[in-house]
């Protein structure tokens, strides 16, 4: 019987078939960070349990880490204690930890692929909803809660319900100035913030094949904003080329065997999906969110909802009904996060600057997704482009995507942001977030208002 990529991943990991779509699923890999695991380790201690396979776990601090000078002590005592606790827990239970001061630290969803820890064909979990990112490699990856993190550490399994499947086919090619972020926002707007709930979403089509691994990660990252815990892209030559030679990827003979297996993972030609959606990639314009849910997005040349619609979000965001989104003045610009903090994102943003300078009254931050991204960007001179244009060049972390460290916006501040959530208060109490692509954020930072990057690129 023909099977989808999701079916193949699921079937290969069933330890016990519980009937009725339920299975005890084997979990191959677990990523840990400082925020969602203190209580998981505590549960292990309470139950007197050990970590079953420490070698399948990898930990890093990202959410609460400061993004200023790493040689300084962490100024927030609560954050310092939380990071120290992760380090202690990892030492006690034998789990590898990438230190804050080291060359490999970064956002958990950036470092997993960088390290070759993320591989096609595996199941991967993390106490973070953006774990869907890793589906870009053809891995069954999903976010879980802290209790489930404890279960995975102790048993290497989780009881799961098989998802329905949805295929989103992006036909044709993107216009210049339009990126994976715009595809993600257009998809979410099309299906709604809960349109993907209960589904594993596979992204397919010419525009997906044309995307880099970075772009595929951006798209899968945001599957959760449509309610789907799992985004997927079939692994291909780009996937293998990205992974080959990475520290934790297989090598030598096992590499060849792995690739041979990975080539069999793509959905069969006649695989049947519970739901199919087609989106013409060429018709996607740069997207901007206006509200407080990621599905509340419009094209840059579009207008805001009319009178009475979405009252609370429009009021929170301080927007007038029916107005244009283009031209809206901003106070802050943020380039970074597990959605858009990779090298390609920084290159796209830098390419828009072209000798321009951040507008008066705008504060602009670039927070690379990892130390490796930062180093590579510096080797290319991107840091100098950003700094010369008046952007702050920071150390890696989640930063203004979750506002748990000292990077927080004041109430009422309006931010053009490459992050993934425009929820109320997400970037600081009362702050207002407009999600868009790295190129769009860079263009907004220079213009001081939301603009169409396609015009900036002419």
């Amino acid at each position, binding site marked *: 019987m023909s099977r989808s990529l999701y079916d193949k991943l699921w079937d290969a990991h069933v330890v016990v078939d519980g009937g*009725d779509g339920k299975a005890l699923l084997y979990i191959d890999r677990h990523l840990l960070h400082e925020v969602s695991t203190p209580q998981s380790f505590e549960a292990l201690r309470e139950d007197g349990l050990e970590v079953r396979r420490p070698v399948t776990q990898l930990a890093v601090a990202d959410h609460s880490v400061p993004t200023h000078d790493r040689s300084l002590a962490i100024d927030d005592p609560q954050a310092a*204690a939380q990071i120290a606790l992760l380090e202690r827990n990892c030492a006690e239970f034998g789990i590898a930890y990438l230190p804050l001061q080291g060359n490999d630290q970064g956002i958990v969803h950036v470092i997993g692929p960088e390290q070759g820890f993320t591989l096609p064909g595996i199941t991967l979990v993390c106490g973070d909803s953006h774990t869907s990112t890793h589906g870009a490699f053809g891995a069954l990856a999903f976010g879980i809660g*802290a*209790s489930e993190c404890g279960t995975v550490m102790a048993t290497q399994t989780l009881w799961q319900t098989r998802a329905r499947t949805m295929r989103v086919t992006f036909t044709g090619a993107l216009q210049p100035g339009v990126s994976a972020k715009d595809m993600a926002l257009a998809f979410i707007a099309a299906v709604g913030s809960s349109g993907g709930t209960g589904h594993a979403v596979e992204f397919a089509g010419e525009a997906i094949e044309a995307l880099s691994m970075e772009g595929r990660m951006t798209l899968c990252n945001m599957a959760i904003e449509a309610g789907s*815990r799992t985004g997927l892209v079939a692994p291909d030559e780009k996937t293998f080329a990205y992974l080959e030679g990475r520290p934790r990827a297989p090598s030598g003979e096992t590499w060849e065997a792995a690739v041979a297996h990975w080539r069999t993972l793509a959905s069969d030609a006649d695989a049947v999906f519970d739901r199919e959606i087609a989106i013409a990639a060429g018709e996607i314009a740069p997207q901007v969110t206006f509200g407080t*849910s990621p599905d509340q997005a419009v094209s840059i040349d579009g207008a805001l909802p009319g009178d009475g619609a979405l009252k609370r979000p429009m009021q929170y965001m301080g927007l007038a009904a029916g107005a244009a989104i283009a031209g809206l003045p901003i106070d802050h610009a943020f380039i970074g996060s597990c959605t858009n903090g990779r090298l390609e994102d920084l290159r796209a943003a830098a390419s828009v600057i072209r000798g321009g300078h951040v507008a008066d009254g705008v504060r602009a931050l670039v927070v690379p997704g990892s130390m490796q991204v930062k180093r590579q960007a510096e080797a290319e001179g991107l840091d100098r482009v950003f700094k010369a244009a008046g952007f702050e060049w920071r150390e890696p972390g989640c930063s203004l995507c979750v506002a748990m460290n000292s990077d927080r916006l004041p109430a009422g501040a309006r931010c053009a942001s490459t992050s993934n959530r425009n929820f109320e208060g997400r970037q600081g109490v009362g702050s207002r977030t407009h999600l868009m692509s790295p190129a769009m954020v860079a263009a907004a930072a220079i213009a001081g208002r939301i603009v169409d990057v396609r015009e900036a690129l002419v």
Partner: protein
Amino acid sequence: MNRLERVEGQAISLPDADVDTDVIYPARFLLITEKKGLGRYAFADRRDEPGFPIGVGNDRPILIAGPNFGCGSSREQAPWAIGDLGIRVIVAESFGEIFYSNCFRNGMLPIRLERDRVESLRRIAEANGTILVDLKAKAVIAGDLAPIAFEVADDRRQALLNGWNDTTRILALHAADIARFEAAQKRAAPWLWT
């Protein structure tokens, strides 16, 4: 884990759609590494709004929420905080999936119902009526409404009824299955075992 079989009492109504876990438990409180006593941070940025229905001192064990409740971040602090306010049952048209799972791990029951049924219960909640949730019978009984049946996966229902710990239960029942799976995977996918 706390058992849950029958929950009876008045209910809170929060009809907003897409109440995300950042709203339920703002990120700055995630620096706290405990799981107990988090109720005081629940809805921290909304509870001062006039008429906001949820807060410390709550004595209603049931929440009638809006669609897509608990979407967004996987933070289990969201159900911990709501649970700490004494809420055991949440009824909504739909839930964020991770939040939905997290509830079961904490002795809480999320119930998905069709919109018109959620709205019938909301009217009873707003009129300060009493609602009875019976997990054994998989039914909600309230006012003069006919009993409302709800679906819940049987393993989750049993776990709540019995107060099972998922982790120790998997180890007790499936240690041999896991070992067998691992031996087979080692042969089939040796690159995952080097």
